[in-house]
């Protein structure tokens, strides 16, 4: 149990954390900005990978496949948005319904096979766990830093525009936004589409990274996304106030989450208890601001 083995396992954890960080940014957009608990991501987290891998296996160009994965995610977000706005289904249920139907759709995309491998030798993959210790441009950490930076840049630009600001207003105070003439339904749909498009992108990258797409690969994804958002809120809430920095903080939150998981494995704890430990980690992170608040109140009363 030497520290060397932990440190040599870190690049893999960081790469995985950065990929899930992209997904966490998508979750952040719905959870914090739009104030909707969107459970579609459990389904979208497999759809992006399914579309990307199946297209690449059929000869499509990497970038075309990635773009189609994002579009597929956006369609999933659109469906949830329609369920919620046009059909009046509560947001959480709308997300669950889409996630449920995406299971069958993902299977259909994969040709009714539950699992499809993609070989890093045969295809030009953008990220692969093979290169995680290579010093060079194919290192997935390097690629993911660029992808994250580009994504944050695009989102920063978008949310500064009128439509972006309208989205933020909708999340902040829906009634006031409607009173000001903002079409809140349209904003919610657009927000869900963008969020799920980003999650699908993360899914496509993760499928390439692990060399396979599996119909169950998104299961439990919302928990990881929320864990990253909460960790970032607790750790970086007071430091980062700029919107772009908050998105960066979310990505770092995912990296921290995966580093903690790697440490848990390194400590030799039973992997069967991994889910319990992840829940405890998130619970403690959630409790820290509450305890800090109580301590501060106690100090004031003393």
């Amino acid at each position, binding site marked *: 149990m030497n520290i060397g*083995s932990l440190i040599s396992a870190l690049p893999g954890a960081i790469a995985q954390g950065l990929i899930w960080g992209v997904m966490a940014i998508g979750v952040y957009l719905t959870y914090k900005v739009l104030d909707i608990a969107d459970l579609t991501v459990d389904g979208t987290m497999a759809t992006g990978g399914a579309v990307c891998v199946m297209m690449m296996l059929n000869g499509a160009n990497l970038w075309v496949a990635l773009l189609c994965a994002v579009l597929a995610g956006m369609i999933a977000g659109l469906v949830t948005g329609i369920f919620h706005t046009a059909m009046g289904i509560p947001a959480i249920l709308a997300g669950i319904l889409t996630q449920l139907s995406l299971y069958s759709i993902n299977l259909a995309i994969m040709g009714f096979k539950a699992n499809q*491998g993609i070989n890093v030798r045969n295809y030009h993959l953008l990220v692969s*766990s093979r290169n995680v210790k290579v010093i060079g441009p194919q290192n997935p950490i390097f690629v993911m830093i660029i992808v994250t930076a580009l994504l944050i840049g695009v989102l920063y630009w978008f949310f500064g525009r009128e439509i972006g600001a309208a989205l933020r207003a909708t999340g902040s105070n829906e009634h006031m936004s409607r009173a000001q003439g903002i079409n809140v339904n349209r904003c919610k749909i657009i927000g869900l589409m963008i969020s799920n498009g980003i999650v699908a992108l993360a899914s496509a990258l993760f499928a390439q990274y692990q060399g396979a797409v599996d119909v169950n690969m998104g299961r439990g994804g919302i928990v*990881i996304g929320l864990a990253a958002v909460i960790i970032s809120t607790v750790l970086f809430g007071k430091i980062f106030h700029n919107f772009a920095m908050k998105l960066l903080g979310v990505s770092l939150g995912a990296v921290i989450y*995966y580093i903690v998981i790697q440490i848990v*494995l390194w400590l030799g704890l039973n992997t069967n208890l*991994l889910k319990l430990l992840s829940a405890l980690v998130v619970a403690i992170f959630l409790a820290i601001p509450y305890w800090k608040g109580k301590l501060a109140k106690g100090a004031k009363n003393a």
Partner: protein
Amino acid sequence: MKTIKKITCIALVLLIAVSAVFAGGSSESSAKKTYKVGICQFVQHVALDSATQGFMDALKDALGDSVVFDNQNASGDMSTVTTIVNSLVSNKVDLILANATPPLQVAAAATGDIPILGTSVTDYETALDLKLNNGATGINISGASDLAPLDKQAQMIVELFPGVKNVGLLYCSAEPNSVYQINQMETYLMQMGIKSTRYAFTDSNDVASVTEAACKSADVLYIPTDNTAASCTEAIRNVIEPAKVPVVAGEEGICKGCGVATLTISYYDLGYTTGKMAVEVLKNGADISKMPIQYAANPIKKYNAELCSLLGVKIPSDYTAI
């Protein structure tokens, strides 16, 4: 408080920078007397557990104390598989055992150097997206396949139930090995002129209702080596017993729970075969890229006496009781 946060941030950045430097990994002494073997099992389940046990026993029998295991179970989570494989690869283990298809795929993506042996994997070509050459992969992967002789299983259904009109194929749509076996079964049954219908459930929550639907129209059910079905045999039995529909199972565990008969392979033996391949690679320096995939040997016909008498199924004499 602000200084503590600043220090945490700086420490994290330093940690990331240091890990990039250490990315080359620590060098080990060249004379390896102890072999480090990493095992990544996909999910907790009787057949996979037996395969892992067989593998470990084979290595312990041949190498005794000079082999150390790092046995991890991913609890069915893909992202945990990636984390486990990452720690095995970065610990520079001498060999990786991938128990089931997802660990095999993730390990294949993560390393091109560490020898990887798969077990409890049915179809290596689809899982790895490559073509086998004389049964060997040509890269750092080999292993044992649990592909049971499906044509013989189809014959078994006809032998036990000669008047069968419709065979219900019950399986979990999320398991690639099950889908593969069902595809083959359908073809074999069609060649014998028997109609078959597929009944797929998504997870353990729909098993009961899908089995109900299957029992309404099928005379006999067939369940392949399906992990989900194997963990829900009680639920399946509670449906088929009152409906009086017999089940032919793909492996012994399922047959013991809810089936009447099976042409079974022993997962323990499969794991043991994989273990012997590991000994070849570790001790005798065999080239893993040229080792052909081994298949399960000696399938045995077995029957479940209790269910056979409950459902009134006559079993020929060449079957052994479970």
